[in-house]
């Protein structure tokens, strides 16, 4: 018998050996695969390759590196998600601040291309909802290429520092523009932030204030000139007849009262502006009688302006302050007379409605445009400033509006230029308490 490995000639043993070798090869491939994948993962985590001499195949399986790395990645992803969530919140917070600040704000890059802009900028500077991102700010905002001294962007790019331009006109409004650079770590300008503060209203107020000073000076000086003139005449002039003297003194008194009225208006408006308000005492007042009293005060003018009444026969009672109601009527009547041509009829209507008492003062004067009506309650506003012949401080209607509001009333103005104006005021009436 020839010497050879036991059972080597048994076909079944040969088959099993081959099978065993195939399985061992598969096993090696599996370990190589695991080791390669672990190395891939470790590479991402940031370490060097796992060498077989550091961790043999059995230890590799026992250590469960795939499990470790997989769990680690889960925590890394959780951390990334949390960081993203916080970033999104911060972004949304910044966007909200960006959109709610009063100024129109633009961010542009070094080539003037718009990178971002807030809602105010879209509304005030652009004027439409179209996409302007990527467009050059000078093409979108400026009608012509501005000179360097008028361009806040160029000033920042040239100086590398914050720059301000005041009163820049744009789309019919005025802006104070503040611009500042956003720099990279090396100091190079990356973006320029430009904040446009709308100063149109502040400018208008300044203009109105200066107009008011000149108007008030004129208003105060005219009666003063009359008073001084007649006082001088009485003191230094030839002796006058007693009735003449009385007339002059009457004029002096009348003009003094006018001055007192202007000063009183100024004090009222300053109290209203200071938030102190006016002290009002509410009691039942006969509005119909107050209308007639107010008209008596304008008897001199009534020759030139007939005043017609339509008052309820059984009277009209309003819960209000007697002085304030008189002031409202005085101001409305005075405006109706001032802005009416000679002979123009003025009409005062009072009607009792179920829940209110309505007062209407109508004239056939020069009237107002809807734009003028919109501003009529603003202090110092005068509808026809060009018409210097009409005296006034521009405070009357502001005070009327305040007093009507203080009575929980409503005021409305209807007017047609050249045809006349009607001011309607509704005072609420107390409902009788049902038993």
């Amino acid at each position, binding site marked *: 018998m020839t010497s050879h490995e036991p059972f080597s000639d048994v076909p079944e043993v040969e088959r099993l050996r081959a099978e065993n070798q195939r399985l061992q090869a598969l096993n090696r491939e599996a370990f190589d695969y695991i080791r390669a994948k672990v190395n891939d993962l*470790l590479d991402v*985590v*940031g*370490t*060097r*390759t*796992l060498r077989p001499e*550091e*961790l043999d195949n059995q230890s590799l399986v026992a*250590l*469960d*590196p795939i499990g*470790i*790395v997989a*769990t*680690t990645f889960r*925590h*890394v992803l*959780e*951390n990334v998600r*949390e*960081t993203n969530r916080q970033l999104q919140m911060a972004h949304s917070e910044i966007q909200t601040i960006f959109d709610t600040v009063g100024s129109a704000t633009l961010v542009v890059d070094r080539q003037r291309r718009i990178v971002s802009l807030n809602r105010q900028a879209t509304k005030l500077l652009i004027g439409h909802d179209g996409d302007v991102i990527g467009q050059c700010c000078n093409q979108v905002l400026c009608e012509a290429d501005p000179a360097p001294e008028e361009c806040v962007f160029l000033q920042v790019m040239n100086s590398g520092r914050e720059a301000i331009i005041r009163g820049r006109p744009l789309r019919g409004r005025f802006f104070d523009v503040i611009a500042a650079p956003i720099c990279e770590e090396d100091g190079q300008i990356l973006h320029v932030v430009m904040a446009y503060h709308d100063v149109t209203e502040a400018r208008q107020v300044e203009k109105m204030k200066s107009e008011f000073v000149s108007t008030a000076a004129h208003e105060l000086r005219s009666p003063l000139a009359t008073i001084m003139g007649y006082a001088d005449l009485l003191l230094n002039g030839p002796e006058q007849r007693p009735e003449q003297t009385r007339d002059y003194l009457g004029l002096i008194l009348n003009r003094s009262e006018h001055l007192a009225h202007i000063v009183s208006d100024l004090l009222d408006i300053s109290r209203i502006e200071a938030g102190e308000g006016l002290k009002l005492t509410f009691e039942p007042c006969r509005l119909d009688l107050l209308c007639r009293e107010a008209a008596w005060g304008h008897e001199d003018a009534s020759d030139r302006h007939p005043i017609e009444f339509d008052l309820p026969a059984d009277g009209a009672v309003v819960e209000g302050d007697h002085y304030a109601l008189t002031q409202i009527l005085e101001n409305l009547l005075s405006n109706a007379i001032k802005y009416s041509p000679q002979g123009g009829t003025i009409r005062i209507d009072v009607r009792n409605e179920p829940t209110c008492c309505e007062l209407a003062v109508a004239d056939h004067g020069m009237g107002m445009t809807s734009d003028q009506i919109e501003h009529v309650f603003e202090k110092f506003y005068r509808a026809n400033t060009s018409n210097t012949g009409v005296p006034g401080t521009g405070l009357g209607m502001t005070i009327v509006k305040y007093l009507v509001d203080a009575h929980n009333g409503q005021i409305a103005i209807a007017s047609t230029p050249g045809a006349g104006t009607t001011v309607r005021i509704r005072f609420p009436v107390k409902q009788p308490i049902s038993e």
Partner: protein
Amino acid sequence: MTIENIELDIRGQVCPSCLLLTLRDINKHHSALSEGRVRLTVLIDSRDATSTIPPAVKNMGLAAQVDKVEDYYRVVIARPEERP
């Protein structure tokens, strides 16, 4: 609140085993570490691991501080607010 200190002494191990063993312990105590209830102190003597552990820890939202102590390193791992 007292912070529990857990120590993992893997001196003698080389990287990347150091990193894997450290990650395994971080995973085991991850929520306690994130909430600041636990601080993990790992003792290693593989210099390579001192540069691989801190970035991996940071990616997981934690912070690590490495100190050289005689002939080994002490890596203290905690949530960033604890400033390990």
